[in-house]
C-alpha cells in the first residue's frame, strides 16, 4: 500500500516533467520568479502582465506561421522575413491606395495574400530542390529578401505623404505610424481594461481563430498527409503522396501566415517598420515555438501558445526586473542573449520530444 502511494507520487511528478518538458518547467518557474520579483524591485505588476499579454497577442500569429513547415518536415521557417515582406507590401499598398481605419487592415491582408502566394511558391520550389538543408537555405532566403527589399522600399513609386521621406518626397520612411489606419484595430475590439491591466481581446480572438483553423487543417486529409510527409517522407511517397506538392503547400501557408502575422503585430505596435526590421522577426518566432516544446519536426498549437507566452514573458520581464535592480538599461542585450540562447539550446536538443 505504502509502496504504491510512493510510486504514484513519483509518477505524478514524472508525468508532469514528461508532458510539460523539463526545460519548459524551468522556464516557467523562472518566469514566475520574475513575476514575484517585479513588485519587490518596484515594477508595477499589472502593467507587466498587460505587457506580456499584449506582446503575446502581437506575436502569436508569427509563431503560428512556423507550424505548417515544421509539420511537413521543412524545419523551422527561418525564411519568415519573406512572408513578412509580403505583409509589409500589403500594409504599404493599402495605405498608398488610401484605405483607412479597419478597412485598411482588411485590405492589407487581401493585398498581401497574392504576394505571399507568389513568394511562398517560389520559396517552396527552392526548398524542394535542397531537401535536407532547408533551415540553412531558409535563413539565407530571409536575409537576401530583406536586403533586396531595402532597395525596393526606396525605389518603388510610393506617393502617400504619410509614408515617404518628407524632404525628398520619395522612398519610404523606416518607420510609418499607423495612426488613422489600423492602429490597435483588433486590440480595441472588446478590450477589457481594469486600472493598469488591459486585455486586447480582439487580437487574441483573431489569433485564436487562425489557430483553430490551423488545428482543423491538421485534422483533414491534407493536413494528415502533411504531418506524415514530415514524419517520414519515404513512407508518404510509398503511400502515393506527392511529397513535393505537400511541402510546397506548407511553405505557402507559412508565408501567408507570416504576412498576416506581421500585420497583426503592426496593429498592436502601432507602426510599420521597414528596411532591416523583418530581419529580426524570424528568430524570436523560432525561439518561441521551440521553447513551447516543438521540435524540428513536431509542433502543435499548444506549443505555439505556451511558447509565445513563455518567450514573450521572459523577454519583457527580464529586462524590466534587471533594469530596476541595477538601474541600467540592458533590455536589448538581455533580449538578444535570451532569444539566441534559447534557439541554440533548442536546436541542440532537437531530438527531444517525439523525434
Amino acid at each position: 500500500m505504502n509502496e504504491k502511494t510512493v510510486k504514484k507520487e513519483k509518477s505524478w511528478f514524472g508525468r508532469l516533467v514528461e508532458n510539460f518538458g523539463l526545460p519548459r518547467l524551468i522556464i516557467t518557474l523562472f518566469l514566475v520568479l520574475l513575476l514575484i520579483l517585479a513588485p519587490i524591485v518596484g515594477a508595477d505588476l499589472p502593467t507587466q502582465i498587460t505587457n506580456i499579454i499584449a506582446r503575446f497577442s502581437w506575436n502569436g500569429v508569427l509563431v503560428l506561421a512556423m507550424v505548417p513547415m515544421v509539420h511537413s518536415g521543412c524545419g523551422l521557417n527561418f525564411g519568415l522575413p519573406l512572408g513578412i515582406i509580403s505583409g509589409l507590401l500589403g500594409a504599404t499598398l493599402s495605405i498608398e491606395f488610401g484605405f483607412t481605419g479597419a478597412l485598411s487592415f482588411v485590405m492589407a491582408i487581401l493585398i498581401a495574400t497574392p504576394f505571399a502566394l507568389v513568394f511562398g511558391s517560389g520559396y517552396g520550389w527552392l526548398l524542394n530542390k535542397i531537401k535536407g538543408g532547408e533551415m540553412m537555405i531558409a535563413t539565407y532566403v530571409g536575409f537576401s529578401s530583406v536586403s533586396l527589399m531595402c532597395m525596393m522600399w526606396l525605389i518603388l513609386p510610393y506617393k502617400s505623404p504619410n509614408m515617404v521621406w518628407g524632404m525628398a518626397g520619395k522612398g519610404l520612411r523606416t518607420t510609418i505610424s499607423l495612426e488613422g489606419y489600423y492602429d490597435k484595430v483588433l486590440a480595441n475590439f472588446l478590450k477589457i481594461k481594469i486600472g493598469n491591466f488591459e486585455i486586447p481581446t480582439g487580437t487574441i480572438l483573431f489569433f485564436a481563430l487562425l489557430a483553430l483553423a490551423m488545428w482543423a487543417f491538421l485534422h483533414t486529409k491534407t493536413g494528415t498527409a502533411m504531418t506524415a510527409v514530415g514524419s517520414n517522407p519515404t513512407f508518404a511517397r510509398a503511400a502515393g503522396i506527392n511529397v513535393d506538392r505537400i511541402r510546397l503547400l506548407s511553405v505557402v501557408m507559412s508565408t501567408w501566415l507570416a504576412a498576416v502575422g506581421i500585420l497583426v503585430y503592426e496593429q498592436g505596435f502601432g507602426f510599420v517598420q521597414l528596411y532591416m526590421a523583418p530581419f529580426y522577426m524570424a528568430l524570436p518566432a523560432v525561439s518561441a515555438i521551440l521553447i513551447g516544446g516543438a521540435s524540428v519536426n513536431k509542433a502543435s498549437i499548444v506549443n505555439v501558445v505556451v511558447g509565445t507566452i513563455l518567450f514573450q514573458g521572459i523577454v519583457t520581464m527580464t529586462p524590466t526586473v534587471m533594469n530596476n535592480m541595477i538601474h541600467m538599461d540592458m533590455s536589448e542585450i538581455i533580449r538578444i542573449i535570451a532569444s539566441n540562447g534559447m534557439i541554440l539550446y533548442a536546436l541542440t536538443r532537437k531530438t527531444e520530444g517525439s523525434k
Partner: protein
Amino acid sequence: MNNQQNTPLLEMRNISKDFFGNQVLSDINLTLNEGEVIGLVGENGAGKSTLMRILFGANMIRETGGYGGDVLLNGEKVNFSSPFDAIEAGIGMVHQEFSLIPGFTTTENILLNREPVRKNLIAEIFGDRMNTLKRSEMDERAANAIELMGVNVDRKMVISDMPVGHKQFTEIARELSKEQLKLLILDEPTAVLTEKEAEALLAAIKGMAQRGIAIVFITHRLQEILSVCDRVIVMRDGYVVSEKNASDTSVDEITKAMVGREVAKTDSAEGKNRSFDQAKTILSISHLWVDMPGETVRDVSLDVKEGEILGIGGLAGQGKLGIPNGVMGLYQAGGKVTFEGKDIPLNSPRRCLDSSFAFVSEDRRGVGLLLDETLEWNIAFPAMQIQNKFLKNYLGGLVKWRDEAAIKEVTDRYIDELAIKCTSSKQKARELSGGNQQKVCLAKAFALNPRLLFVSEPTRGIDVGAKALVLDALKKFNRENGVTVVIVSSELEELRQSCDRIAIVSGGKIAGILPAASSVEELGALMLSQVI
C-alpha cells in the same frame, strides 16, 4: 610444405561468436596449411564474413564482446587487437569494397604508407614525415607485386581511370607487396570481374599458392571454387556443415550443403496441390529493369496468376528486391507492367496504389512505418489518402475530416486479428518490437484491400514465433480474400512453405520458376546459375 608440415599455418579452434545473444558462429574448426587454397562458401548470413573478421582482428568483433575459441598462427595462440596486428602477423585481406585512393596511381596505392624513403635535411629537422619517396624503388616493388599475380596492370595509371578488374588486382598487389604476407583472405574478389579478368585472377591465386601463400577464397561462384581450391568449406547458419577436398565434391553437393535444412517437418502439404495453370494472369511484367542500388534488376519477365502466392527468391544483391520496388515506383524503372489487362505506368507509386496494388517494404523502418506516429496513423494512413476511407466529409466534401473513431476501430480490429502486442492503438510504432512492427506494416497493406499484395522480406529480423504468425497471416489473407500475393524473400525455406510457385532471381534476371514443392537443390542451383 617443409618442416612445418605438422603445425598448420593457421588453426581456428571452437570459434563461436554471438551478437547480443544472437548466435552467428558456433564451434567452428578450421585449419590451413602453407600454400593451401581453401574455398569458403555459404549463403548470405551464414557467418563467413564474421569468421574472417575474427581472423583479421576487426574492431567490430571486439566492440560486440569478442569471440570464443582460439586462433593459432604457426601453433601460437594469437589475439589481434586491431587489423594492424593481423597485418603485422602476415595476414592480408582484400575486401569486397575497394579501399583505394582514386587520385593516386597503382604504384602509390600499392605502397601507401609503406613507401621506401630517403632521408634529407628537412626530415632531420621536422621528422620522418618530411622524407622524400624513392620513386624508382617503389616502382620496382610494385612491379614485383604485380608480377606475382601474373597479370598486367599499368603501374602509372590513376585508380579512378581503371576498369574494376584492375582495381581488384591493385588491391591484391598491395597485400602481396607486404613481405611478411603468409595468408591472404579474398572476400568475393571475382564478384566485380569480367569472365576474362576472373580467369586471370584464378590463375594468380594458383601462382600465389605455389609461392607458399595460403589463401582463403570466399565466393558465390562455385565453379571457381572447384577449379582453384584444394578444400571447400561450406558454412550454414553459423556452423561448418561440410568440409571436403575439392576433387571429391561437385557443385550440386556444395549447393545442397549450402541451402539444405531440416525440411521434413516444415513441409506443409496444404497449398502444394494448388495449381494455377488455368488461372488468368493478373499481373504481367515484361522486360523490367530497375535501378535500385545493390539490387539491380536487369531484365525480368514474369507472369503472376490470379489468386496464387508467388515467391521470389535469390541471393542478396541479385535483384529480387528490385522487382517489387521497381513495380511500385520507388526506384527508377523501365519495361512494361500490365495488371488485369491495363498498362501500369512505372515510377508512379500513386498509380500503382490506385490500381489496388499494395506493397510491404523490406525497409520497415525507412519506408514501411511512421515511427513517430501512432499505430492508428500507420495503419489507416494509406487507405485514407488513397481510397478516402476513414474520412468524414463536411461542406459538400470540401472539408475531409479525419474520422478518429473509424480509424481506432480498424486499428483495434487488426491489433486483434494479427495479435499485435502493444499498449494501445495510440502507441507509437517506434516502440514496438520488429515482429510487431512487421504486423503493423501488413495491417497497413490489408487495410487497403488490395487485389495484389507485394511483400518484401516479410520475416527479416524478426523472431521465429513472429515469423510463423506473419506468414500465416499472409496465407490467410490470400485464401480468405482471394488476394494474389507476391512474397520476396531470401529465405528459401520460408518460400517453400508459403508459396505455390517460386521464381528464382539470379543476376538481375529470372533464372527459372519452379513449383514450391521442388527440392532445395533444384532451387539452390537456380540461385547460383547466373550470379554476377
